[in-house]
């Protein structure tokens, strides 16, 4: 069965973005209209795909000369957030109040998970429009394996939490002064005392304003978060796990694989990237350089072997060699696409 959504996951710095681009290219070569959604590609990769900052606002077509169309977009949390607010705010005044709120300013830039959440939001928009046969989603560099998948739920929890309820309380009277009384009972009073003493009133005021302005958008957020969760578990969705070479990356990789399984997400192939080729193992010479090259080749063999035995045939293992240069032009992306084409054969 053809996958309509491929999500490329793995820890930071293993080459997810490059591989996502190459998988997109392979898909377009097969004649499928494909969109690659990426985070933070390198300058050279952007250049060679002909993708500039305009791709933050909309999808850009890549002149790849493939049978299917290849498009790319860059994910940008702040911009997606702004767009959502613009689209769903009930009136221009409410929109302006949110966009100008200091708390929003910081929230959209640094609330844990916002970037991830926005990725999923954008993905959802694209999926609904249905203009592509296949979407390849790169994921942001996160530490905690599946942050970005859990982000929608976290945000809903945050909005659901007492933080919102408390912030929505009429804290301030019409003169902008704090109201004394609280109707939240003992716990509420303690929290108030805490917030008041620790963070001061200004933050409270900003938060209250923010949540009040944000109120009308809230139901929409909630519904979409649930829909996105089911999109990620739909039969047409598959996950590709990218791993670093070498034994030390194995625990990380297995951690990811386990987490995906626990979350009910479908893990397909595991790609081990930047593997030092076997030939290095037979470099002669006793100088330092020769010893290092042999060691690197051995280290990466050990890593592959360990991973192979742990995965025990449950997932296809695809090995991508370290290339002489970072693949950033069509020729070298094309070579990679050739290696990765197997990922598109159902799973």
């Amino acid at each position, binding site marked *: 069965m053809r996958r309509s959504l491929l999500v490329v996951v793995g820890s930071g710095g293993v080459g997810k973005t490059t591989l996502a681009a190459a998988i997109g290219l392979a898909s377009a070569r097969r004649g499928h209209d494909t969109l690659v959604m990426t985070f933070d590609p390198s300058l050279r990769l952007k250049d060679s795909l002909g993708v500039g900052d305009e791709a933050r606002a909309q999808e850009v077509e890549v002149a790849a000369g493939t049978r299917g169309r290849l498009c790319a977009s860059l994910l940008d949390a702040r911009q997606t957030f702004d767009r959502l607010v613009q689209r769903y705010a009930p009136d221009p005044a409410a929109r302006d109040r949110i966009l100008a709120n200091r708390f929003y300013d910081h929230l959209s830039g640094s609330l844990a998970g916002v970037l991830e959440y926005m990725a999923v939001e954008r993905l959802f928009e694209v999926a609904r429009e249905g203009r592509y046969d296949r979407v390849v989603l790169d994921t942001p560099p996160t530490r905690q394996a599946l942050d970005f998948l859990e982000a929608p739920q976290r945000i809903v*929890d945050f909005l659901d939490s007492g933080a919102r309820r408390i912030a929505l309380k009429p804290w301030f009277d019409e003169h902008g002064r704090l109201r004394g009384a609280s109707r939240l009972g003992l716990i509420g009073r303690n929290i108030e005392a805490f917030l008041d*003493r620790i963070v001061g009133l200004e933050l409270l005021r900003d938060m209250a304003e923010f949540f009040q302005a944000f109120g009308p958008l809230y139901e929409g957020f909630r519904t979409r978060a649930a829909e996105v969760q089911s999109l990620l578990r739909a039969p047409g969705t598959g996950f590709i796990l990218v791993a670093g070479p070498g034994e030390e990356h194995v625990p990380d990789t297995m951690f990811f694989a386990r987490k995906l399984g626990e979350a009910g997400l479908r893990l397909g192939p595991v790609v081990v990237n930047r593997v030092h080729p076997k030939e290095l193992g037979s470099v002669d010479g006793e100088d330092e350089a020769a010893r290092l090259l042999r060691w690197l080749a051995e280290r990466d063999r050990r890593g592959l072997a360990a991973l192979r035995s742990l995965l025990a045939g449950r997932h296809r293992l695809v090995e991508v060699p370290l290339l002489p240069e970072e693949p950033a032009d069509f020729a070298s992306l094309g070579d990679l696409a050739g290696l990765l084409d197997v990922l598109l054969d159902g799973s």
Partner: protein
Amino acid sequence: MKAGRADGKPVGSLLEELGRRQLLVVTGKGGVGKSVVAATLGRLLAQRGRRVLLLEVDPRESLHQLLGVDPSGGEVVEAGGGLSLQNLPPRRVLDDVVREHLRLAPLVRRVLNSPVYHHFVDGAPGLKELAVLGHVQRLVQGWGGRRRGHTDLVVLDAPATGHSVSLLAAPRVTAGVIPHGPFGHMATELAELVADPVRCGVVAVTLAEEMPVQETLELLDLLRGRLSRDPQLVVVNGLYPRLAPRRQGASRRNGVELAVRRRRVNDAELARLREHWRGPLAELPMLPLDRGRELVSALAPLLEEALADRVEGRP
């Protein structure tokens, strides 16, 4: 930068100069070798008589492996030779602030158990980063040391979440959002600490590859733009070896050709970095050693040599 001066300013090696600070923040993209460099710097400075605490902020502890000691589990662990290690859960620091300010045990319990507090701590911008820096400040001012001795210098292995400048910019951001109250005051003080090159040093670690160098150049810009400061040192780690010139007529095997070309990428990226960064730069080779004590022991003399240049001290 080189050579001593006779105008009365203290003169020492770059390493000694780094060691005069209260805090060294070791920062860089994920996986470039921050922890290895932090551990190596910590060792070297401890050898020079400074009492150094290596502070790790990562729920998945790993720094202890590089020192050959047990995981810290939040406590300070002695690693010998004047060096100690602590893995710091930022939440714990924030919880301590709550304890200090609310005092009454039942009140404290209620706040700490409340979901509102959890979401606040997770959601408020920069608060966790602030907690980490606040802890550092207490350590170097000697408040945090109930059972432990005084710490001269904290080497902070900065977490690789988000952009590496976010930790350093956090106090400013927080001071902007929370202008008053204890967190607000703490933020303001810490913003001063972080901006002060006499007390706080920044060490940027990178690989000589496109993406890490790109991020390092962005870091340099952000440091200048947001904090009006430069790092004290850029460490370029994991360099491929320069291969001995080919003997006449001998042909190279495939694999060797790969290494030659990777080194060429390294050299090109080093050149690009040097174009934008004229300050101190240390190069470290990739070594055939697994992550562990031996790697740190092998890198230590190399880093020491790279930092042996004499520099003019700060007044």
